[in-house]
């Protein structure tokens, strides 16, 4: 229901800057440094060791959320494959791997106004010096918790928990009207 409502909102001609990202496979991986290194081999990406940075290779990405927490993104329909390869790579390590594919909705905000648009409700400075390309972090947007990632200079990706997504989309439209 939320998805339909978002699509309806996003489908407006004035909303070309906002898109719902197609369904994706998402995992939260938690584990210490050893498990992280092993999981990187299983997932095909060496995970970022720097705080608040994302690593991307092809259509797979790993986002640093905390010192022992990573968000893994991959195209839709790869849950079993990724689970199997990570379970194999992580044998002997203590870790937790949770499928959160349907917990959150991906939104992409792009264009020259993306930065001021998000800055209006996000307490972080989003200029290129403080929030460079490749940075990702959990933060807040209005009253909702989001994961914010900047894959390119004028492109932001938001990962919003499903039940907050309509709120975030409508708030973005509200702000866009005043920009």
């Amino acid at each position, binding site marked *: 229901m939320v998805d339909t409502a978002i699509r309806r909102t996003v489908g407006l001609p004035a909303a070309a800057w906002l898109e719902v990202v197609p369904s994706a496979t998402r995992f939260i991986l938690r584990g210490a440094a050893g498990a992280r290194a092993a999981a990187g081999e299983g997932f095909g990406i060496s995970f970022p060791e720097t*705080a*608040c940075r994302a690593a991307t290779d092809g259509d797979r990405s790993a986002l640093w959320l*905390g*010192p022992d927490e990573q968000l893994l993104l991959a195209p839709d329909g790869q849950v079993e494959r990724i689970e199997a390869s990570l379970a194999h790579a992580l044998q002997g390590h203590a870790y937790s791997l949770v499928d959160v594919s349907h917990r959150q909705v991906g939104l992409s905000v792009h264009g020259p106004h993306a930065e001021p648009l998000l800055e209006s409700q996000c307490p972080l400075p989003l200029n290129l010096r403080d929030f460079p390309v490749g940075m990702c972090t*959990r933060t807040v947007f209005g009253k909702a*918790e989001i994961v914010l990632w900047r894959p390119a200079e004028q492109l932001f990706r938001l990962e919003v928990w499903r039940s907050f997504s309509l709120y975030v989309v409508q708030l973005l439209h509200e702000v866009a009207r005043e920009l």
Partner: protein
Amino acid sequence: MLLIQCPYCGLRPELEFAYAGQAHVARPADPSTTSPEQWAEFLYLRNNTRGIHAERWRHVRGCARFFNALRDTTTDHFLATYRAGEPMPAIQAVQQP
């Protein structure tokens, strides 16, 4: 907005943090010999410091980690933040800047 230095993520806005009580409260090592008074003290009694206070904070809307901070309760000024498990920094050393 008040900025707090997260030991993992760097300077971040206060909105992302949650206060989590007094730091360095040690659980009695041997519960079987601990008196009810000592348990009550461990569970309920906290300092009400005027001045520099060691306390736990959580970067709940960021990296979600708990860490410790030294904060002046009269000015709300954060003197230092450090990771959980690390010793409390000497207060003279952090008062200078």
